[in-house]
């Protein structure tokens, strides 16, 4: 039931995103790494595809071994986020994600999860409270419902920090009876032992901190976390990523470290890894961890005449996923700017002599006058920017 609902929700997200604003942006990418502990074929490939709409994001990825025949495992993940009421005081974010692995020598197992977040958002900082429901399958264990969590974030110019905490409880087999999700050897037990003496109750507290910085063509991100449990020693992990934009649609990146335990669901081992990859798109990041409501802001803008009635609108918006402009010259319909380099975006528009009203929007947020532009009343109780063309 929950899997069906999740599949339908994820399937509908790109269409809803397209309906809500400008057409969604599609990103493709690939990462590769070598994992000595992965049995069979240590060379792994991780293709990804992302659909980014004004108020929604859908990310899909797969994990394939280098040798199809010898692959002891294949994995896939699908995740989506949708922002409801982005202009309201308490916007709600619906997130869903699913992990699945399985193959000839690997029993099918995975996890589906749906989460609702209530956001308290200001332009430069915010917090959220979340409630989530998880439905694992193919594992010997149960997760008590519901999960609860909270998080907070802040951003200034190209620097952003985020912290989140999640509390869950569940039932697991005693250590002697428990199989590991990281083991790739043989089929796994899919049910809890019938003897209550062989079952233990666990409480898990997961925390995670993220620091992201980008300037120009370079973006650096460091993510670390720890999972605390009464039954097991603390599980710590940390991963660093560096991304360099080479052209407007081509970015290379490299990562090093250990991954979020959630990803072990589709990965063969939890050993530290180094990976390299590339992304083909204007989109800077395929991460769904940051709240959709945590948006970048426009730090600079200019309007310059190209020739005749053609003008270039240039915008600087560090960390933005999406920048749009609208005004009388677009018949008040959103026009997506092209990402050129780093934090720079631009669009070429036709401006006839006269005065033109203009507003900008970043990452599906509120429409605002461009910073530094003259303003005027708009007749609907708001303010718009003005461009004067002689």
């Amino acid at each position, binding site marked *: 039931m929950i899997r069906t609902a999740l599949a339908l929700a994820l399937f509908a997200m790109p269409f809803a995103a397209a309906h809500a604003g400008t057409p969604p942006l599609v990103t493709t990418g690939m990462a590769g790494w070598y994992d000595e502990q992965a049995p069979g074929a240590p060379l792994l490939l991780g293709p990804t595809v992302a659909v980014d709409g004004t108020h929604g994001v859908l990310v899909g990825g797969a994990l394939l071994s280098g040798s199809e025949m010898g692959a002891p495992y294949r994995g896939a993940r699908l995740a989506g986020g949708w922002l409801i009421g982005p202009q309201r005081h308490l916007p709600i974010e619906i997130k869903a994600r699913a992990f699945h692995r399985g193959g000839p020598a690997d029993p099918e197992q995975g996890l589906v999860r749906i989460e609702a977040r209530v956001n308290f958002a200001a332009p430069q900082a915010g917090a959220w409270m979340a409630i989530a429901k998880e439905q694992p399958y193919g594992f010997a264990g149960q997760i008590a419902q519901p999960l609860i969590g909270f998080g907070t974030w802040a951003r200034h110019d190209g620097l952003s920090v985020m912290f989140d905490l999640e509390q869950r409880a569940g039932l697991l087999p005693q250590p002697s009876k428990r199989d590991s999700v990281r083991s790739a050897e043989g089929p796994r037990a899919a049910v809890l032992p019938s003897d209550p003496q062989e079952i233990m109750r666990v409480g898990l507290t997961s925390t995670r901190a993220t620091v992201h910085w980008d300037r120009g063509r370079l973006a650096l991100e460091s993510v670390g976390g720890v999972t605390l449990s009464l039954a097991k020693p603390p599980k710590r992990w940390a991963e660093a990523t560096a991304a360099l934009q080479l052209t407007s649609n081509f970015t290379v990146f490299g990562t090093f470290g250990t991954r979020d335990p959630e990803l072990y669901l589709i990965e063969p081992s939890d050993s530290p890894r180094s990976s390299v990859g590339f992304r083909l798109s204007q989109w800077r990041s395929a991460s769904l961890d940051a709240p959709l409501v945590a948006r970048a802001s426009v730090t600079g803008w200019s309007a310059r005449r190209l020739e005749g009635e053609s003008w270039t609108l240039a915008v600087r918006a560090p960390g933005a996923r999406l920048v749009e402009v609208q005004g009388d010259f677009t018949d*008040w*319909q959103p026009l997506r700017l092209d990402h050129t380099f780093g934090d720079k975006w631009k669009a070429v528009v036709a401006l006839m002599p006269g005065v033109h009203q203009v507003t900008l929007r970043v990452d599906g947020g509120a429409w605002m006058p461009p910073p530094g532009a*003259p303003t*005027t009343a708009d*007749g*609907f109780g*708001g303010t718009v920017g003005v461009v004067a063309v002689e």
Partner: protein
Amino acid sequence: MSARSWRAACGAAFALAAALAWLASAVSAAPIDKRLVERLDPTTAEEVWKVVEAAEAQGVPTDPLIVTALEGASKHARPERIVAAVRERSAALLAAKEVLGPESTPGEIAAAAGALMSGVPRDTLARLRQERPKGSLLVPLVVLADLVTRQVPIETASMAVLHASRLGTRDADLLRLRSRVEGDIRRGVSPAAATIARLQTLGLGDAPAPPTSPGGSHR
């Protein structure tokens, strides 16, 4: 011709005239702008179009009216609010045209309408035209509307732009003044004080004292 056939002929002629009049009105009525039909509900589009046609008959630029309706649709304004905003813009455009004179460009009229809607009095626009009888008023009007939008008292904003125009300030310098006033306001300086101080530091000589105190009316 008998009285009976005379009445029949008159009736036929009347019916023909009525049909021709209906046909003429149907032919002469321009179709509603496609953009309005696509973005507004039929009733609102029709109401807006009536305002547009009336404005056109008065020689007022009509594209700003259509764009205002589209802006309202984009901002999810209620239909009655959209029609009211279009009427308000139409009245402002007509007033601006009357004040600036028939030689004014559509851009100047649109900018002046924006200033009027921001609260700038007609008298200020008339004096601005007197100061610049030939030159374009586009930039002074944009700066004036911006200062008023940023809570500079109307009297102070009017004085600043009129004074700058009287001294033959170039448009680029006027835009620079606006930009610096905006920066000062962001740093916490009161809008009126920022305007007066920047007017004096732009090499425009001693600016006249504003007619009201900095804490005066704000539109």
